[in-house]
């Protein structure tokens, strides 16, 4: 008990002195993780779309070559950035660029460097997730979109990616939570994240364990809140489980269910004949809705006439 009391006292001591540093570290970590994940997702989606552009032997050789080349480049990108530690990628970019260009090309701020590294790292993971998400969408969806004349990009944008996005939402959440924690390696290039606040605090106070406790609680709080929010977003994406029938009154069930803003009531401009047929149709739909047997009867009638016709043919 004694020890816990001491830990509490130490934490209070740390917080009064370095509280603002911890808080700004949390802020920086969250911003970096969020921006990195969002840009990474954009990179991932771009790679996923480029990766799935179909080409056949009938296409122009230049087009085939370019598409093939694009796939190879994306593959290399994914393998390299997925296969090396982010901490080394940060060092490599931050110190490598000035090294090779004699200081003429370099990151002027650690923010830019950190965002670039986290983004392209996340992008490499997301490229594969997006590919998986696109594959997971029923191929019939692509065919349906193509059959009404959509191009590959339109098919992707309006039909496939929205569904793929929903399917890979848990993966995106995963990546965000990983980014919240893994951005701690950015201290290597001097990025002022939550973990670097710990390094600064213990450097002066030598309270290693109390500060680590603060860090632990801080990171866990961030990730718990993040996963709660992600679940909420997923539920939002799923939308409502029910829908509303659009109907005004029973007679106008089919005709009055929508409005022509410039035409007034749908009955106004129609011949009495079409009104009558509409009323008949409305009545039919009403009966259909009230009792499913009606449809069954129709089907039965159809089968009977079918059988009669078949009998007649024999």
């Amino acid at each position, binding site marked *: 008990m004694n020890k816990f009391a001491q830990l509490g006292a130490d934490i209070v001591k740390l917080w009064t002195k370095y509280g603002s540093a911890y808080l700004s570290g949390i802020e920086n970590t969250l911003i970096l993780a969020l921006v990195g994940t969002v840009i990474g997702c954009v990179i991932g989606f771009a790679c996923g779309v480029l990766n799935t552009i179909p080409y056949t032997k009938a296409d122009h050789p230049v087009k085939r070559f370019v598409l093939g080349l694009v796939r190879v480049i994306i593959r290399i990108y994914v393998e390299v950035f997925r296969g090396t530690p982010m901490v080394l990628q940060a060092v490599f970019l931050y110190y490598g660029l000035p090294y090779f260009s004699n200081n003429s090309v370099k990151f002027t701020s650690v923010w830019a460097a950190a965002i670039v590294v986290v983004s392209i790292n996340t992008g490499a993971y997301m490229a594969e997730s997006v590919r998986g998400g696109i594959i997971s969408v029923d191929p019939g969806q692509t065919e349906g979109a193509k059959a009404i004349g959509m191009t590959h990009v339109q098919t992707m944008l309006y039909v496939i990616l929205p569904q793929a996005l929903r399917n890979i939402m848990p993966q995106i959440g995963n990546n965000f939570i990983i980014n919240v924690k893994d951005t701690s390696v950015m201290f290597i290039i001097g990025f002022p994240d939550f973990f670097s606040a710990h390094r600064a605090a213990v450097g002066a106070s030598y309270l290693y364990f109390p500060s680590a406790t603060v860090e632990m609680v801080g990171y866990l709080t961030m990730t718990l809140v993040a996963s709660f929010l992600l679940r909420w977003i997923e539920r939002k994406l799923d939308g409502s489980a029910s829908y509303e029938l659009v109907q005004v009154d029973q007679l106008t069930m089919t005709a009055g269910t929508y409005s022509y803003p410039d035409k007034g009531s749908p009955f106004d401009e129609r011949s009495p004949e079409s009104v009558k047929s509409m009323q008949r149709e409305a009545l039919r739909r009403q009966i259909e809705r009230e009792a499913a047997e009606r449809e069954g009867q129709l089907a039965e009638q*159809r089968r009977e006439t079918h059988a009669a016709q078949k009998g007649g043919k024999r």
Partner: protein
Amino acid sequence: MGESILKINHLSKTFGSNLVLKDIDFTVDAGDVISIIGASGSGKSTLLRCINLLETPTSGEILYHGKNVLSRGTNAPAYRAHVGMVFQSFNLFNNMSVLENCIVGQMRVLKRDREQARAHAMEYLEKVGMAPYINARPRQISGGQKQRVAIARAMAMDPEVLLFDEPTSALDPEMVGEVLTAMKALAESGMTMLVVTHEMAFARDVSHRVVYMNGGVICEQGSPEQIFSNPTKPETAEFLARFRKN
């Protein structure tokens, strides 16, 4: 019949070493309602998918108003916008409501504005009796309803010819009627239709021409009366006899 919309010459398709379509010759004129019948695996669906370029034929040509769409440089999406297709498995866009399904193609492909597209979509949704369900998602409606929406979606694009790939095969028996009714109304309105079907009553009563396919070739084609009551080929007679028994 009017001028020919589609003319198919010597069309062949192989999957690996498997020859699915052999030297198909075939014409679709404006206003035609053609039923393609035949046993499973006879290449009916593949023929339809080749016409819509969902499959790339191995050889032959498909002339759309005299232009070969299989030649290099054909704008396949633009061509498909004129040739609608209704699938066995509906293929409605799951991420959109019924109304959005019928609007998105008009807006993105035909560049209509939203109001115009909506009015046009409603016209066809009303025709197939789906107007009350415009806010529903595809997963919330029945198979027959989905197929009727799919028909409205295809029609909203104002295609010159509409291809039906076994539109009722995935439906429960009591839902077949509602889809066939919608298709019959379409046929009567003068739409050019190419229907792969196992519904012999539809082929006989609604279509103008019946094509019987067997083993990747067009075995026989003619008027429904001729095919159903007086088939010239023994294979056709045998196929129809098998159907009558069931």
